[in-house]
């Protein structure tokens, strides 16, 4: 009998979340400890599963399960992961315990139950969205995920949280409903082509859909993913949500959930709508490059730390999308590594920002900080690390992703890569300026006598830092897992690789 790994990964946090409901409200520590145990157990299960993963397997998906769900509509509960899915599932299950520990004291005791319960629900849904192999199931996770995030932002965030939560929900629903229309359209088309409608991903791949129809359906999915990712000009909800949410919510939202957008592009858009993907590629690449530059420039002008990180993420998402739509192995693999790396660097920046804000009366205004390195050198050190991770310092994970994306872009359109590189320069500028203003110079009066971070606060940061460095120095294993999935996707798209000789990068295998 095979173990239903992925279902277990969803059921475990879900059951854990239900148990928090019956834990006594008056004992917040018990609730938090329980949430942490569940999250760690889920992580352990993920590691056990990942060790079984065969990178060179012939089957597109591993750990597959499939049961009919609504047979009347050709809908099944089907899960399974390829390399890309596995990496993102792992990212989600790593970050949940990290944010639970780093956000240990983020909410009042009375709200502990709801907060940690919702985090666990979210974890289950994140695993689901990256492992669904039925497009309908994917959509269900995609939409249902909004609800815990909506509550996480709206109940536990800053003063403008209700507004930010509604803005987030409505933007996401706009995308979600357009995707629903396209999804139903896809179903109707599949019924016309196959005789029987289906939502099964593998049956939809390579389905002979009329190119004009593809272009219409592509847009429905694309807008949903572009809002999620977020791509310029669909990004305006992100800064608000990032600013108002607690650090833990922001990390899961930007670090993991927004990856659903880019994941959806590489997993669903490219293989199901190859002709439309090729048709729209110039447009998408243009939006991605605009996003890279616009996000970086606006980040440069931010006075609020969290908004700065939001815009910087937008710039990084531009890179990820760019890598996907140049249709090269380096680009696709680079994007996937970048998704992972960006999740880690988002965790680093928002955790350190959260620690800083806790020490400064909850203010996220950059101007209210200064000289942190004198009063809290360890915190300042990690803050520097986070900034470096964000600007993709060589040796860190984000460098691998960014570099591969740029190579992948260069061999297809060298001038696009050249423009995108400007974004890197601006990124360096705002990241270093931020560090300089916050950590160096005279210590701000409000920070006088503040204590440095303790062991509980260091552990999650250390975990993130170790992973960032490890992937940065030894990206080989990750690329080995990711490359076959990307190759398979590109085969379906069928855009021939450019003739420029390609070299293996950082241990990655040459195609």
């Amino acid at each position: 009998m095979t173990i239903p790994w992925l279902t277990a990964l969803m059921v475990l946090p879900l059951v854990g979340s239900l148990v928090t409901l019956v834990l006594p409200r008056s004992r917040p520590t018990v609730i938090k400890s329980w949430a942490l145990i569940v999250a760690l157990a889920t992580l352990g299960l993920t590691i056990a599963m990942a060790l079984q993963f065969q990178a060179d397997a012939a089957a597109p998906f591993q750990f597959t399960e499939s049961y009919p769900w609504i047979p009347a509509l050709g809908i099944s509960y089907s899960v399974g992961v390829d390399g890309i899915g596995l990496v993102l599932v792992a990212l989600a299950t790593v970050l949940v315990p990290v944010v639970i520990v780093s956000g240990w004291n983020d909410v009042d005791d009375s709200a502990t139950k709801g907060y940690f319960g919702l985090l666990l629900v979210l974890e289950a849904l994140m695993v689901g969205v990256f492992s669904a192999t039925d497009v309908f199931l994917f959509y269900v996770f995609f939409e249902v995920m909004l609800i815990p995030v909506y509550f996480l932002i709206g109940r536990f965030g800053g003063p403008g949280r209700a507004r930010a939560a509604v803005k987030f929900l409505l933007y996401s629903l706009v995308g979600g409903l357009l995707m629903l229309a396209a999804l139903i359209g896809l179903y109707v088309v599949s019924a016309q082509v196959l005789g029987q409608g289906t939502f099964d991903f593998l049956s939809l791949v390579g389905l002979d859909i009329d190119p004009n129809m593809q272009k219409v359906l592509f847009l429905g999915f694309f807008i949903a993913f572009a809002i999620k990712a977020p791509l310029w000009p669909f990004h305006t909800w992100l800064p608000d949500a990032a600013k108002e949410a607690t650090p833990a919510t922001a990390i899961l939202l930007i670090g993991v959930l927004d990856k659903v957008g880019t994941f959806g592009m590489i997993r669903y858009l490219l293989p199901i709508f190859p002709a439309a993907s090729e048709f729209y590629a110039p447009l998408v690449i243009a939006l991605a490059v605009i996003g890279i530059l616009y996000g970086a420039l606006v980040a440069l002008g931010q006075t609020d730390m969290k908004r700065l990180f939001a815009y910087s993420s937008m710039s990084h998402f531009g890179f990820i999308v760019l890598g996907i739509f140049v249709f090269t192995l380096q680009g696709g693999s680079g994007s996937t590594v970048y998704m992972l790396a960006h999740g880690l660097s988002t965790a680093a920046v928002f955790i350190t920002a959260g620690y800083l804000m806790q020490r400064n009366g909850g203010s996220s205004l950059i101007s209210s900080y200064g000289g942190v390195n004198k009063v809290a050198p360890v915190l300042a050190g990690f803050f520097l690390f986070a900034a470096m991770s964000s600007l993709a310092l060589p040796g860190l994970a984000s460098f691998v992703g960014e570099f591969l994306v740029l190579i992948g872009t260069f061999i297809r359109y060298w001038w696009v890569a050249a423009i995108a590189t400007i974004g890197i320069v601006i990124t360096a500028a705002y990241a270093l300026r931020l560090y300089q203003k916050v950590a160096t110079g005279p210590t701000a009066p409000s920070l006088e006598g503040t204590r440095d971070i303790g062991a509980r606060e260091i552990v999650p940061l250390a975990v993130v830092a170790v992973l960032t460095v490890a992937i940065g120095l030894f990206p080989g294993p990750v690329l080995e897992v990711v490359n076959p999935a990307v190759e398979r996707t590109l085969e379906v798209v069928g855009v021939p690789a450019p003739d420029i000789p390609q070299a293996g990068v950082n241990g990655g295998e040459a195609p």
Partner: protein
Amino acid sequence: MNEVMPTPQIDYLPLLPMIIVAAAAVIGVIVEAFAPRRARRPIQLVLAFGSLIAAFATLVWQSGVRSTEVEGAVVIDGPAVILQGIVLLIAIVAALLISERTLDPAGDSFAPRASALPGSEDERQFTARGYLQTEVWPLFLFSVLGMLLFPAANNLLVMFVALEVMSLPLYLLAGMARRRRLLSQEAALKYFILGAFSSAFFLFGAALTYGFAGTIEFPGIAAALTAQPGLSALLVGGLALIGVGMLFKIGAVPFHQWVPDVYQGSPTPITAFMAAAVKVAAIGALMRVLYVAFGGIRWDWQFMLWVIAALTMLVGSIVAISQSDIKRMLAYSSIAQAGFILVGVSAASQAGLDAALFYLIAYGFTTMGTFAVVSLVRDSTGEATKISQWAGLGRKSPILATCFAIFMLALAGIPLTSGFVGKFLVFEAALAADAVVVVLLGVLASIIAAFFYARIIVVMFFSDPPEDGPSVVIPSAATTLALAISVAVTVILGILPQPVLDLIEQAGVFLG
């Protein structure tokens, strides 16, 4: 013209559900007249619940029967059985809400003497004496009878009779609220006058159709359409006027003006019943008329119905945003929901019929649940229906607020709720009928609607409760049960819709 009217052949078994409810309603009237005051409530409760449950049991027992009864006047086919089943189940839940007597300190939701002038000495005395009436029960049962007959009627006259049997008691019930009686009486009057107009439209349309087809029976009209191709003025006028009459009952734009006032003024259990059951019956009847009688000219009415469906979705959603009263907001939301159902109806296909039936089940129970919650949030003057008064409800009564949030999410069409499956089916039917624009407008309306559904959640969960906010009354077993059923149906139909989809699929098509 010396034909002898034939004695109708009647097989009573398939009609038994309607006969049971009719008998209970008649006995209920007699009880009101002759039974001593104290005995009335127990008898009425037994009659109401007993007849509804017995009717449902008979319906299930006879559900395999497909026949035309009473010389073709009534047709028992798959969709009719499904629709009658939905009506009965909703009626049972509504009866639970109507029977509630612990919420209002003065007794129940109904006026101690409906005929007394609001604010008069007469009224004051009756209230002071603590009179509680049970006249609502026979009225309610008669209305249920009309609803059972409405979607099963197979000719225009029987349909008209059913329409009136359904509507007349509702006009009265709308005016019987204990609190805010002026509002309630205004609602009743408005409903009655506009309802009377719409009935007249329907009747006039029936006359014109008779002029065209020479018959009022649906299969006969369908045959006449094949025999005389092309559109005549009589036919177009007849169909249009019948359509107006029915769309009025459904509350479709532009015949929706009465909905917010009536929903707001009526006693909340009655509002719940009206919002849910009338729509089921009226949409069922509309589908029968359109599909069976006028199916031959579907290309002519389909476009008009697309337009009405789109308008209904959009207007309902847009106007709901600006509402500050929860009952009015729910009224506009129910208009918008009717629009979504009409999208399914106008697909004019088997998929469209199935989608509309599923949506009606989903919508019916969710709506009952929302109004059940409304009836529980009260302050000293009765129900606290200002949305601003609901602030912080999630802190004070997390379970109740969570129930309401689930209903809001279902109405907004979030996956894993019944509303999503309904919306999915409706859009699928519409896309299969190539109505891309309508689906896009539906998406747009859904987004607009999501805004005000989300706003309620914001108010309940993300804001602090006011100092002198309303309290949530602990409901009796009846309302708790009604609420539990509504939540259960909303969630289960969202997660495991397959059995119900099978049931609807087996029901098949209208008998022509």
